[in-house]
């Protein structure tokens, strides 16, 4: 490296300039943006090594179980820096999402020590944690001898961080004082609106700001554009149909899935008057303006239909809209984003969230070494690298969201995305009640919704039946 470049990087490390200025200055010296960014990241890695003995597990190896995802790609792209920093070896198996969680369940339930750490969703830890398959990471996070001083745990967005912690008591509040940190947030998804600007303009519609407006806008968008449907939301017979837009809107009206009595017993709340009203509107929206084959739609179809110009809007994971606005998607560059509060009386959106997280297997043979990897992968340096150089979106750290370079990049290509995130983040958290029957009950909720949309059962009756079934399952499991 030439002296001038060295000087600039040193100045950055001392805090003499911010990242954006550094990259610009290196660019002025003839260095490409990507090379500059890698250089900056390597220098950040060196800076990390200054205050903490990253080499204490040098020569050891950890094995990861990973889902095929842009977050995984970002980690693999930066992995050499970790190896250089720690002297450790990292191996991994990557599986597509369709089979990923089956693989995790099989590995953990068999007590296999093959994997030291793995990707997971926070909901899954409601099974893994009580089953004794994952470690409570508080033990490492709070141990100064094992965690580097610049890790900055509090930098994680509060609602996201707390959503990964549960005390294991059915109905226990997420992030309570006695909660166990079953996993560490890695990247997350809020649920808001992504829409096709050309289609909205053609149909003469403003961006909807509440559920009634959304239903109306979806119908108008469908009528005003040929061969498309108005609104994309998930519909497959899976718990994943409930957690995105549906639960975000539902929670915005103050509705809950379950209630807990004073004696700690859980009961279904899906058949309250407010819930029935919300369901009726949601069902009508799908019947009038949803995908014709809605009941088979997973996140994949919701996203690709928006990207292919088959739908005008989605009320789903914001990163679906993010990915569909780039690459070789037909609608790349034509999408925009808006925060969405379904309840006209709500002060802000309250998105339910999906959090891709990292967890440590209870059966790992070297947990301290595994923690070395986990703290690096979820640390601020890798977060910033992934967010600015790769598609590690949405980052879970406040510091990354505060980075001017990252915000500028998003704002220039993804109109409204940063604002959407900023407005929604304070209310973003998991809105489900944490309890071990989560997947049973939520999948049944999705199946009920399918019946309602298909007209097999009226909404009122369907929700009463659902509540009866949920209550009976809760009782049988000793939770209700």
């Amino acid at each position, binding site marked *: 490296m030439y002296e001038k470049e060295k000087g600039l990087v040193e100045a950055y490390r001392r805090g003499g300039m911010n990242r954006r200025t550094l990259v610009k200055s290196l660019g002025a010296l003839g260095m490409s943006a990507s090379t500059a960014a890698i250089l900056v990241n390597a220098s950040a890695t060196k800076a990390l090594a200054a205050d903490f003995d990253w080499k204490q597990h040098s020569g050891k190896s950890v094995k990861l179980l990973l889902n095929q995802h842009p977050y995984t790609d970002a980690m693999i792209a930066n992995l050499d820096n970790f190896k250089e920093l720690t002297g450790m070896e990292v191996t991994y198996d990557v599986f597509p999402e369709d089979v990923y969680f089956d693989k995790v369940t099989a590995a953990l339930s068999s007590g296999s020590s093959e994997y030291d750490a793995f990707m997971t969703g926070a909901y899954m830890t409601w099974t893994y944690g009580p089953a004794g398959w994952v470690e409570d990471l508080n033990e490492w996070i709070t141990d100064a001898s094992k965690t580097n001083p610049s890790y900055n745990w509090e930098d994680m967005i509060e609602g996201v961080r707390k959503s990964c912690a549960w005390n294991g008591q059915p109905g226990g509040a997420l992030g309570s004082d006695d909660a166990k940190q079953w996993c560490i947030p890695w990247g997350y998804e809020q649920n808001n609106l992504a829409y096709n600007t050309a289609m909205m303009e053609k149909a003469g519609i403003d961006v909807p700001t509440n559920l009634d407006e959304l239903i109306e806008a979806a119908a108008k968008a469908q009528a005003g554009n040929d061969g498309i449907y108005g609104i994309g939301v998930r519909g497959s017979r899976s718990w994943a149909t409930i957690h995105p837009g549906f639960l975000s809107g539902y929670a915005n009206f103050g509705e809950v899935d379950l209630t807990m009595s004073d004696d700690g017993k859980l009961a279904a709340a899906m058949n309250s008057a407010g819930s029935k009203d919300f369901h009726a509107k949601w069902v009508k929206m799908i019947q009038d303006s949803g995908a*014709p084959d809605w009941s088979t739609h997973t996140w994949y179809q919701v996203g690709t239909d928006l990207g292919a110009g088959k739908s005008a809007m989605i009320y789903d994971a914001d990163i679906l809209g993010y990915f569909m606005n780039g690459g070789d998607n037909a609608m790349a560059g034509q999408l925009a984003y808006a925060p969405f509060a379904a309840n006209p009386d709500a002060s802000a959106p309250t998105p339910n969230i999906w959090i891709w997280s990292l967890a440590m297997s209870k059966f790992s043979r070297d947990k301290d070494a595994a923690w070395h990897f986990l703290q690096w992968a979820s640390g601020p340096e890798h977060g910033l690298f992934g967010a600015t150089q790769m598609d590690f979106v949405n980052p879970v750290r406040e510091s990354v969201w505060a980075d001017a370079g990252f915000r500028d990049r998003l704002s220039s290509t993804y109109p409204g995305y940063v604002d959407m995130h900023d407005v929604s983040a304070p209310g973003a958290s998991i809105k489900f009640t944490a309890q071990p029957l989560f*997947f049973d009950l939520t999948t049944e909720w999705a199946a009920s919704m399918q019946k309602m949309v298909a007209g097999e059962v009226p909404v009122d009756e369907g929700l009463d039946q659902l509540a009866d079934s949920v209550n009976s399952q809760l009782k049988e499991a000793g939770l209700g």
Partner: protein
Amino acid sequence: MTAATDPPGQRRKGVTISRKLLPYLLSMPALLVCIGILIPFFTAVWYSLQHYRLSQPWNRGMNWGENYLNFLTDADFWNTLQISLLYAGLTVVLELILGLGIALLLQKRTRMNNLISIMLLMPLMTAPALAALMFKLMTNSNFGILNYFAQVLGFENMRWASSPDTALLTVILVDIWVYTPFIMILLLAGLRSLPTQPFEAAALDGVPRIQQFWRITLPMLMPYVLTAALFRLLDSIQQFDIIYAMTQGGPGDNLMVFQVEAYLNFFQSTNVGRSAALLIILWAITFVLSNIFIKNWLRLRERTRPEG
């Protein structure tokens, strides 16, 4: 000491022991295979008698027949039983009719017929899950070719696997596409191996072709029909991949067959006890059906065997 130098009594004793052990030694491989089959089976039976959820290890314990007794009052279970039997029955009947029809058309040994019969086997070489995904694309409401043809034929809002009205039909269509060649090839082999004399005699007597089919071909072919039906029935009632890949058992509970229900119970709900009980019930149904078929098959084989 060699055998040649052994005293006669001792040698005879050794031979006797070897002879006694021989049957056991010969049956050892079969015994080992049996153990390999029986251990997982009895493990599943053991699990099915427990309250066993992976997510609630503290609640694990024997509940003996409770999982099974719960099925009696469980509407989901009866729905699963009904759908599984309906699916198996419809696919087997339709595939038999189609397979037999195609086999009759290809019965004559010509170069063209041989070529067609080989080409018709291609769907059988496609993984059922892949076939399901292919049909999912072909029935897509935006660009699916089958959907296009349905529109041309006047079915404007055909929703295929997405609608409770047509979901069963759609997955049966995929099953038929994949497995009809299996029936066709079995029946074709049967048709081509039938003795020619009865047909020649019937032709001499001027028996119409349709009568020949009902009175000679079908009865003589029946062992083959039953064999094909047995294989397909056992497979159909255990259907998983096509339904799971297309709808995951939905819409609603419309396609919630045994294997899908058991799979979701295990991998999604981590309810090992219920999942195992469902599979043991499925095993029992399969066992009974196979026995009925095999008994009938043996009876028919005896009846159609030439006197001698």
